């Protein structure tokens, strides 16, 4: 065992000095390799962090949401349904939600106007008051204590005192929120009593959610039932899909890299060829030369992977992935400012290795072998 160990140390020694002797050629390869790792790692780290963020935030989403459908589109729902649903077995709690979208012509941005059903987002505003998300406050340039002016769809101007600005911690979901009291909301949109935007309910036994959803669809055939799981699965899917598409598009880059690696490995300089010939002549076997060259690939891979990954980590978590943000986040006027919490997933690192190091090794194995089978008596001629 120690013999094997010592031998590996010697091979590694030779490899490192060999790499140093051809520094220029190897630096070039290292840079390209690191770049590929950087791009892939950025995509993977970013989507993963977003995914985690979304999961945490969506944890607060309602268990079951019931929406009324008219002519295939989401419409307001009568309060009478609340009683029907409350009497259902397994349903614990039903209440109506009031929310809607509002286009602010001044800023050309969409706000979500909402009546808070709990104190989750801070204190509920009283009539005449408003609580907004950080994005709204920024774009409208208002501070707590000042007045926010909103022109309703019925061309009436609303003057609301800004009570609070929502905390940046939840910015990813609250940035475009405008929270008002129920009377203000109904007046703003001209919505009479007895009507809600949708209904939300909680279920006694979480395992029964699917069953309850089924029953609701049966009782209220003109409604759409959405469970929290549905939302989570959809987001998961979309993130996966976006990430995967990007990676697939990068397949072209990976292929180019593989070809580059093959070329580099095949293009042995005369000096290098001579060296291998000498090694063979003085007593190294073909397998020793192969092992040495595999170590070479290993050292370069390790260096490139580490460099690329660390740079990607810094790029994503300290510079918010500035280079790739537009593609991955979607397009919006009110950009939430939030910081992704740094996370590294072992599974992801493994997948990244598969995408970068494995193709590199595969591309270089044949050129390595070709170099290693140099005839030992070539040095004599």
């Amino acid at each position, binding site marked *: 065992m120690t013999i094997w160990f010592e031998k590996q140390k010697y091979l590694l020694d030779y490899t490192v000095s060999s790499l140093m002797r051809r520094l220029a050629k190897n630096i070039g390869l290292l840079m390209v390799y690191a770049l590929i790792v950087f791009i892939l790692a950025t995509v993977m780290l970013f989507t993963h962090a977003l995914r985690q963020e979304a999961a945490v935030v969506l944890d607060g989403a309602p268990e079951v949401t019931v929406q009324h459908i008219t002519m295939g589109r989401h419409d307001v729902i009568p309060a009478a349904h609340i009683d029907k649903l409350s009497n259902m077995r397994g349903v614990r709690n039903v209440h109506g939600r009031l929310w809607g979208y509002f286009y602010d012509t001044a800023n050309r941005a969409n706000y979500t106007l909402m009546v808070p059903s709990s104190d989750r987002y801070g204190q509920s505003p009283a009539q005449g008051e408003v609580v907004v998300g950080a994005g709204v406050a920024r774009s409208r340039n208002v501070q707590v204590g000042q007045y926010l002016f909103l022109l309703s769809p019925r061309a009436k101007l609303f003057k609301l005192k800004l009570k609070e600005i929502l905390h940046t911690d939840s910015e990813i979901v609250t940035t475009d929120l405008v929270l008002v009291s129920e009377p203000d909301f109904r007046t703003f949109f001209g919505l009479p009593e007895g009507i809600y935007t949708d209904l939300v309910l909680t279920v006694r036994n979480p395992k029964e959610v699917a069953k309850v959803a089924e029953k609701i669809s049966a009782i209220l055939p003109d409604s759409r039932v959405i469970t929290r799981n549905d939302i989570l699965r959809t987001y998961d899917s979309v993130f996966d899909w976006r990430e995967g598409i990007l990676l697939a598009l990068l397949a072209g880059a990976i292929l180019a890299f593989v070809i580059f690696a093959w070329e580099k490995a095949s293009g042995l300089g005369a*000096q290098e060829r001579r060296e291998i010939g000498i090694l063979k*002549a003085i*007593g190294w076997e073909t397998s020793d030369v192969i092992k040495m060259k595999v170590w070479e690939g290993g050292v370069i891979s390790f260096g490139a992977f580490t460099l690329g990954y660390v740079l990607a980590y810094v790029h994503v978590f300290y510079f918010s992935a500035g280079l790739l943000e537009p593609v991955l986040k979607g397009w919006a006027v009110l950009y939430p400012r939030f910081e992704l919490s740094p996370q590294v997933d072992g599974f992801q690192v493994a997948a990244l290795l598969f995408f970068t190091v494995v193709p590199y090794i595969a591309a270089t194995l044949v050129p390595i072998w070709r170099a290693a089978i140099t005839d030992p008596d070539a040095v004599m001629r």
Partner: protein
Amino acid sequence: MIALDNVTKTFNEGAENEFQAICDVNLKIVMNRVTVLRGPSGSGKTTLLGLIGGLARPSSGRIHIDGQEVTSLPERFLTEKRRAVFGFVFQNFNLVHGLTVLENVMLPAYPLGKPRKALSQAALDLLDQLHVAHKADNPVQFLSGGETQRVAIARALINDPPILIADEPTANLDTALSHEFLNIIADLRARNKTVIMTSHDPLVEQAGVVDVLVTMRDGRIVGNL
């Protein structure tokens, strides 16, 4: 003892430029002696040297080293045998530029995985015997001709092989250094090593070191003294 039976070596077999370098050679190399293969350029002596030392395989015929047939040994085991039995000094010395003198000397022993301390000590001892130990940490590019040759010899001896093989060792040396080299050879013979050389330098034959002289011409042996 090394025995060659009916050995032939043909290059580019089947192609247009097919060329028979060695033809039907029968030779027995005696141990503990200095054997010189001489002949004009193109006589095949370097090729024969390569075959004796296991660097190449004959196209036909058999080679035995200490009774074991090595012609059909797979590369791995041939290399093992070669490493154990032969040490090579090439005409152009063929040291690895970029490595130090000490590293160059240790190189043939790397695949054996010997403990580093012991190996570098052995290498230093050899360099010391050849009076180049003071250059141990110098890169090999900056050595003089004579120093380079002595390092090459040290490298050839690191695995303590019983046989030293040298190809045209005095071709790139002046008279003084050539004499120095022949003294080293005499010293090795005194220590019961076997030496096989190729040479067409008259200095070598006249030095009084040579025990067996094999003359070659056009790929065949024409004289054996």
